[in-house]
């Protein structure tokens, strides 16, 4: 779904309302979209789970990622811009503060093989399945 964006926000007092309306539309148009901050997508197959989180402006080295059995926790702080005294702020819409998100995954994770990379404000975590949790096929021998 596409919303036309005509942001004459500095001229039209109703634009902020329309913006809110669009934001609400965005939330309801995909009822299954999870709206916690930060936005996280989780993908999985039989061998691993891939988690991507949108954390623009967060220093990747300061993100705290912990894995225990089938739980993964993502913790961090989004700091605001550091401003000099002579700077005036006109608009501050970007969220700041600490965040934490936890997920229970479909299987146990091999914690020493977890890798995390960051690119353009997207953190990608690859969580391989622990060998012990993989299903084993048992051959049936005819007696």
């Amino acid at each position, binding site marked *: 779904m596409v*919303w036309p964006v005509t942001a004459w926000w*500095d001229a039209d007092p109703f634009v902020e309302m329309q913006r809110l309306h669009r934001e609400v539309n965005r939330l309801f148009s995909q009822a299954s979209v999870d709206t916690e901050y930060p*936005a996280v*997508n989780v993908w*999985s197959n039989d061998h691993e789970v891939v988690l991507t989180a949108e954390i623009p402006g967060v220093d990747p080295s300061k993100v705290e990622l912990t894995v225990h059995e089938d739980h993964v926790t993502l913790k961090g702080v989004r700091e605001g*811009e550091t401003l000099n005294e002579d700077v*005036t702020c006109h608009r501050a819409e970007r969220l700041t503060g600490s965040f934490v998100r936890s997920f229970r995954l479909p299987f146990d994770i091999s914690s020493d093989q977890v890798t995390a990379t960051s690119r353009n404000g997207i953190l990608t975590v690859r969580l391989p399945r622990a060998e012990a949790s993989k299903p084993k096929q048992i051959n049936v021998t005819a007696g």
Partner: protein
Amino acid sequence: MTDKNQAIEKASSGAVREAARRPVYEPRVDIYEKKDALLVVMDTPGVEDKDIDIQLEQDVLTITAEQHVESMEGFTLMVRGAVPGVFKRSFTLNRDIDRERIEANLRNGVLHLVLPKTEKAQPRRIDVKAA
């Protein structure tokens, strides 16, 4: 029309439909003013620098940034928190911006725009002399 042509037409209209289906988001911005410039800070997670388009038409500055779509073939989506889309936002600029020197750079998913003020728009301190 041959089968091949039909297939091509089908594929291209599919791609167009796919592009049109991508949601357009109004990204969050911070706007700061310094003595000599305006700073616009915008969140654009998942956008490559080549996919950012900054256009200045008359007084309107429009920023369009398209999110990169990761191919996750062979995976099942378990939690959907972000739908890849296009960030788009427009601003009306004051005439006192020096258009030739506008700068943009992308750091860690955040777009930083520097809009320098023209010389004559910068505040000047006037010394008062005692007679």
